[in-house]
């Protein structure tokens, strides 16, 4: 996973206010239920690709195209089978394909918004700080969990505790204990240190939090939002068969 969160500069034309991105996420969520046809799904992905290109996330564009392409071909291939396990797999693959646009949204939300921006945006929509800070820190720790798991696996191997599918099936509780005990111990420690670090950096100050950038809606935000809404209306009509 690319863990780099670029500090975005609002003076750039492709800087979109996080609040607008939140609205986009909401609309995209609704569209998931509107879309029924394969063409609709592909259109949806195509729109996300345009958005990601606009935001300059080219690596993510590539991954999104690969993901969708592979799943689309698989669906096409599996659609020749009408019964048996292949059909069942076909349905599963199709469900994954339908959710491909979500991957695009995920990239948009995690790769183009820094934790600080997200906290500020959520605060502007009046979420309490206890929620916003928790969310920001959780997002910050997602990648760390992966790293910690890797170290734990290594140290299990050294202690002759094999960690593979077979050992997990044979003694699931014990394996869970071996992974969770060190992981939880780390979390307790990290959580305490992190909270202390937040306190000494003034997190408890009430009132409006400052921001590195001045947070306001700009021209591009309105244009972006307008395009998203127009696209949503178009897709709705497309699915309803008005425009074909």
């Amino acid at each position, binding site marked *: 996973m690319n863990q780099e969160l670029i500090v975005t500069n609002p003076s750039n034309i492709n800087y979109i206010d996080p609040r607008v991105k939140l609205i986009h996420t909401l609309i995209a969520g609704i569209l998931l239920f509107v879309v029924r046809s394969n063409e609709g799904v592909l259109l949806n992905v195509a729109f996300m690709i345009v958005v990601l290109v606009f935001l300059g996330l080219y690596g993510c564009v590539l991954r999104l195209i690969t993901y969708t392409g592979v799943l689309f071909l698989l669906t096409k291939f599996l659609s020749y089978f009408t019964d048996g396990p292949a059909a069942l797999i076909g349905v599963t693959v199709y469900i994954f394909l339908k959710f491909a646009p979500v991957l695009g949204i995920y990239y948009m939300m995690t790769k183009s918004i820094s934790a600080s921006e997200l906290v500020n945006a959520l605060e502007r929509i009046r979420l309490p700080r206890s929620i916003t800070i928790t969310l920001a820190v959780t997002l910050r720790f997602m990648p760390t969990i992966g790293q910690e798991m890797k170290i734990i696996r290594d140290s299990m*191997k050294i202690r*002759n505790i094999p960690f593979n599918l077979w050992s997990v099936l044979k003694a699931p509780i014990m394996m869970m204990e*071996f992974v969770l005990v*060190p992981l939880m111990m780390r979390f307790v420690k990290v959580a305490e240190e992190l909270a202390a670090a937040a306190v*000494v950096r003034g997190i408890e*100050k009430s009132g409006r939090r*400052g921001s590195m950038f001045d947070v306001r809606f700009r021209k591009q935000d309105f244009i972006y939002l307008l395009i998203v809404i127009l696209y949503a209306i178009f897709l709705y009509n497309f699915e309803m068969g008005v425009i074909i």
Partner: protein
Amino acid sequence: MNVIEISNVNFTYQGTKDSGLKNINLKVKKGEFVLLTGRSGCGKTTLTRLINGLIPHFFSGELTGKVAVDGTEVHQSFTYELAEKVGSVFQDPRSQFFTTNTISEVAFGCENLGLSSAEINQRISDAFSTLQIENLKNRSIFSLSSGEKQKIALASTYAMRPSIYVLDEPSANLDIHATKRLGELLKSLKEQGYTIIVSEHRLYYLMELVDRILYMKDGEIIDEWTSEQALALSDHEIVKRGLRAFSLNNLKQIEERLEQPFESMNPPEFIAKDISVTFSGHHLLNQVGFSVTKQDIQCIIGITGANGVGKTTLIKCLCGLFKKRFGTIKINKKVLSNRKRSDEMYFVMQDTDYQLFTESVEYELMLGNNKVKDLNKKIDEVLNMLGLTAYRSTHPMALSGGQKQRVTIASAAVNSAKVLFFDEPTSGLDGKNMRSVSRILTNLHQRGKLIFVISHDLEFLINTCGRIIHLQNGSVDEDFPLNSDTVSKLKSLLSYENSNL
């Protein structure tokens, strides 16, 4: 003018019986540089928490006496008011970051204070330029070395413009070079007139800066020295107090180690040849090779090299944890497969927290060692040797840092593996624990184990190793016996700035 006034303070953490601090009286003048030292658990971290207000605002407990910072009593101020006066940097740089980018990290504190965006940006660029870390601007936190992370931590407190800095073991995870750079940063802060309080085990890099050194024991301030007085302390005085050396210039090898009886030892022969590892086209390790044969002097072997040079990767390759590699490894003239190697070798990793899985020290030593003959007898023996007998049924997580470290070493000692690897076994340990790790490794070595230690702890290496393998640019750069003639060479290798970083 006194910026910090602590009078008659006693403190006990909630849920513990032992008092954290006893009868503390301390006055610090504006612009003073005070170093707190002492064994692990002596109360120096607790004392720093009094100053930055974490006690009583974050860690609760029984507090008596008076603590005033800048003329205001700490318990009457809000934490964010203190945050503007006292900047804190903690030991582990991994757990004090909130964002994943260096700029937004430095901005974080200022944003909390509710400053205007113009002011925040001004302070960010100011922090990066004053601390001379412009090269770290707009980088991902994950791509930084420990030393760089610690600089960013310092910059993010600097941006909040406190007048007092409190640092809790800031060098614990740093190599010699990064430690030196940290010392330079602190020097420039001192020159700007800030008051600085540092709690540390490593003392040498601060000797030119400190006005006062306070030695603490069992929660009390016992001794107070100037740096001249501290440097004049005899080795015996330093060892008695469990401290690390105040200066790296006069470090000597322990002589008794050189007179070990060699006859009883029978460590295996070990040959590594042409070990190469490639990460996405870039050679991390390029044909690394070394051998330990019966003809060589029998000793513990230190593996050194700058951060990121691939020391840990090398060890992972050798003991079969890391499979994508080329080259051969022979033990006693036999080439071993990956699986066989993990039986013959044992690796004690850096962070003890990840290596303790069970609910008692005894179970911990049994875990994965069921093939060992006379397991119970062996466990008794090892516990006795490492001074852990009293903790046999204690939960590993209830132990102190030094004790946890000893438990991980103990499980290596119980294991039947002949070749043992250790990754930075002394990072963050005080002088006494460091010396005890050194003694234990020597003891294991005398019982016929072949031991390799990755370390950048000069004092520890000199105490422990008889041979140094230095890695640079992905291959073995130097391989020499460590004796009184080569100590200075080792020192210059460790302090050398690697251009890759």
